[in-house]
């Protein structure tokens, strides 16, 4: 499905606009929407979990085995800042995109 693009001839498009590869929006990166960027400060993080579910873009990966979060997935993070605001331990800092 991800091989369908604006140059695909009509014969090769799925009928009705159906999609048979569920969840393929992962192929569509939204990271370039970002104007502010959350920076993960792991040493401050207590792994409390409050930031895990608040990300609208599922951009906070959580390890299946350790149940601990890792760094942001910037392919999708839109920089809304909900995670930073909810963090009680200053483990997420919002910075201007492009700033180091």
């Amino acid at each position: 499905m991800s091989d369908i693009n604006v140059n695909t001839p009509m014969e090769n498009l799925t009928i009705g606009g159906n999609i048979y590869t569920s969840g393929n929006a992962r192929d569509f990166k939204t990271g370039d929407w970002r104007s502010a960027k959350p920076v993960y400060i792991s040493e401050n993080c207590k792994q409390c979990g409050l930031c895990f579910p608040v990300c609208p873009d599922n951009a906070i990966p959580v390890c299946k085995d350790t149940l601990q979060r890792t760094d942001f997935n910037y392919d999708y993070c839109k920089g809304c800042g909900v995670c930073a605001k909810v963090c009680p331990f200053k483990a997420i800092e919002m910075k201007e995109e492009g700033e180091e």
Partner: protein
Amino acid sequence: MSIRERLSGNEAVATAMKQINPDVVAAFPITPSTEIPQYFSTFVANGAVDTEFVAVESEHSAMSACIGAEAAGARAMTATSANGLSLMWEMIYIASSLRLPIVMSLVNRAVSGPLNIHNDHSDAMGVRDSGWIMLFSENNQEAYDNTLMAHRIAEHKDVQLPLMVCQDGFITSHSIENIELEDDEFVKNFVGTYRPEHYLLNDKEPIAVGPLDLQAYLFEHKAQQADAMRNAKQVILDVSQEFEKLTGRKYGLFEEYKLDDAEIAIVCMNSTAGTTKFVVDSLRAKGIKAGLLKVRVFRPFPGEEITKALSHIKAIAVLDKADSLNGIGGALFEDVTSSMFVQNIHVPTVNYVYGIGGRDTTADQIESVYADLAEIAQTKNVGNPYRYLGLRKGDVK
């Protein structure tokens, strides 16, 4: 083996539905199609079918539920008339654009307003370009047979479009006529099992149906629909041929009644064709070369074939049971004349709008049309091409 019975048009369709045994029927009562879900509910209540009957709260929901069911992988059917179809309008287009072979019985009735429950074709004409295959039925037998053939056509891989079987409200839906039914086993085998390639309930391949389809894709998806509609013509012919082999009852894209050597001809659809055949016979007895072309397949419109069948006629009248309120003429008239024009066949042709709101159309009136045609054939003068039949009109100067 065919079984001889006496059934109304609605009973005939309901019987076909029972024999088809669809997985889901979602319908809402509206005159004159109400009896179809009524009869069908008794089949459900008595365990004669496996169907889930969804007694929805509106026709909009009837079509929405049919779409949900068909996309889920089920065979879904419904029945409606007039305003019911109008309320479905939005979903009618969505059903065809999602390429779901839903089958609907449309018992034709005048669309409001003002309110009128009787027959004309304004409901069907309102959705004529919505991407549904449209079969018209002269009588109960044809309504039954068209319903039996419907799924084979709609579900064909080259088509995958919804299909409506039309018949005239009250005139055929409520008239009991002799009919030949096929036995249940025959229908089961003829219709076959529905095996969609992709469907919502397949947990091994979850699918997404009904996207936001923007500038880069909608054009192509619409063109695919148009292709499918064109493909339907051959599929209808193939299925009809198979049906004829098995039942002896012949169906094509249209029926030519004494048209071969005719000089004047009427083109019409549904029950009026019965009256017209009667008139043709009586005119033939007087030596008048009258003929009839009864359109069965209105969508896809068999323009080339109709042109060919009419090319030798000296004057044609196209009868429309719905006025198009467009200042130029009825829908069937437009389709017939434009088909002939683009193929460079120019036969004097007039349009009669008739039978609106259930107004009776008598044999005498049909005969008057042939008399007009005889005159046009002789003088080659069409005069006013946009005419009415059976309309009360004073002599206003």
